[in-house]
């Protein structure tokens, strides 16, 4: 099909929650430098699919590869070590902790010298300074105080914190599960811009979204998830939003020949 190896791929992924079927033999491929959108109805298994790669779930059966290596993540920590960073739909921020603490949760910076090594003291000053810079880079200047507890932030601001965390630490893949769901028009545009920027830098992104115009604006390929499986992968150039909705609901089936199962972004551009 193609000679460019996928950064991340899954084959025949199955995940049951008791008697509920989350994934029913799903496939996925993410190629270097591309933005892959994942769309589908509520409960189609989008979050479950990406959670296998985030380390939040282990699939019951199926194989997963990251840069050609077989992987099975037992925790989000392992996935992070593999360079995969995720903004979860539930955001996964700790309300009582402040913004800087949240950004560095699980990978805190320690002080230099004996204070850090023997007393394991955190370098709060540095974490705050860098956290502030990161949010500034994202253009989220509406947050006034980096030592503010996250519970005092608005829903959109919390989302910004989660996105900033992923963008700051993702080294191989960044996964965004509905990152703009709680955002206003301006903040949504910022996140969209961020995805563009990541793409420019050659960072592969998986974007789950229900926002069709957004998906068609930013995605290289669109993975349509239906009933726990990949129904089709299409490109925005060949298909329009109406087609995508038709595939989501099962009204339209697309021949493999018309799909974009391989990479569409030329390696030269990456």
């Amino acid at each position, binding site marked *: 099909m193609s000679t460019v190896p996928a950064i991340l791929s899954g084959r025949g992924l199955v995940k049951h929650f008791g008697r509920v079927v989350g994934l029913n033999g799903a496939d996925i491929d993410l190629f270097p430098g591309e933005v892959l959108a994942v769309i589908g109805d509520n409960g189609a298994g989008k979050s479950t699919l990406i959670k296998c790669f*985030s380390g*939040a779930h282990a699939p019951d059966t199926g194989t997963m590869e990251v840069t050609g290596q077989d992987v099975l993540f037992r*925790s*989000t*920590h392992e996935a*992070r070590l593999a360079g995969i960073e*995720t903004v*979860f739909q*539930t*955001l*996964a*921020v*700790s*309300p*009582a*902790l402040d913004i800087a*603490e*949240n950004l560095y*949760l*699980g*990978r*805190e910076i*320690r002080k230099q010298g004996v204070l850090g090594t023997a*007393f*394991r*003291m*955190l370098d*709060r000053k540095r974490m705050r300074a860098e956290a502030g810079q990161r949010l500034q880079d994202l253009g989220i200047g509406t947050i006034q105080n980096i030592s503010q507890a996250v519970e005092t932030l608005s829903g959109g601001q919390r989302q910004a914190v989660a996105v900033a965390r992923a963008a700051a630490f993702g080294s191989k893949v960044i996964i965004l599960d509905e990152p703009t769901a709680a955002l206003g028009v301006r903040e949504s545009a910022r996140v969209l811009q961020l995805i563009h920027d990541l793409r420019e830098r050659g960072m592969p992104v998986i974007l789950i979204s229900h926002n069709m115009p957004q998906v068609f604006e930013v995605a290289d390929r669109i993975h349509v998830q239906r009933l726990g499986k990949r129904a089709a992968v299409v490109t925005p150039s060949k298909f329009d939003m109406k087609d995508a909705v038709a595939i989501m609901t099962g009204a339209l089936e697309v021949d493999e020949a018309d799909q974009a199962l391989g990479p569409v972004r030329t390696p030269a551009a990456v």
Partner: protein
Amino acid sequence: MIVFTMLNDRFILATNLSLMTQQTVIVGTLAIAQTLIILTAGIDLSIGAIMVFAQMTMANLVVTSEVSNVAGYGWPAALAIAAGILIAMVAGGVNGFLIVRFELPPFIVTLGTLSIFTALTLIFFKARTIQGPEMPDAMTWMGTTFKLGPFTVMTGVLVMLAMYGIFAFILRNTAWGTHIYAVGDDPDAAELSGISTGRVLFSVYCVAGLIIGIAAWITIGRVGSASPNVAPNINLDSITAVVIGGTSLFGGRGTMIGTLLGALIVVVFQNGLALAGYDQAPRVLAVGVLVIAAVALDQWIRKVQG
């Protein structure tokens, strides 16, 4: 406070102040362990039972039949104390293991181990009290006092204050401290953020065990003997101290300094009632009311803050 003062002017004497800090030392030290656990949204009802088991272990290991009617093992004091602290750590570890591995609620697990450790104490050590003079001086060293101005200071009180300082530092300034808050605040979010919540919880119960072990040594010094019947209300008292100190029973919020103040309030409250001539029973009743009032206040503040 003012009421107590009027009820009995002995209440403000320096000797009484010294006595009060000394009375705080047992509940105060145990409340450090309880704070760590409650910060993770847990609770430890077995704190008193572990403490008693640890101190009876220490005392029985150290005595010999020559000076006591207990068979004993005649271990050196340092070794016996270390063994008692280790036992307490293992006991805490058992709590942690059951809570993490089998995902059982801390309330149930520690309710069970409360009975288990109480029974183990009776099985291994009978109901015999070992008096201070039967033991080497090191065993009661925590109870020795020295003069500081008008105050009589007990060594155990200094150790307790040092522990408050250390754990306040750890909570504020280390990753482990941050993770304790994160796990208590929202365990799912903590797990998704890459924190091994199981490991954090287990380590908290082990460290709590360590603190309980040290509290056992302090208790022998403070009481002047090792008795299975010491401090019968210590579980409730330690929880009361933590809650009055502003730590939320729902986890994720609270400070060590708050707990220290909470412990002082509990003791002042009881001491005040005692000096006013009330018996044990109404004092226990009052503490029960106090803890419910404190939790209700916590709930109410949360609601008002939204």
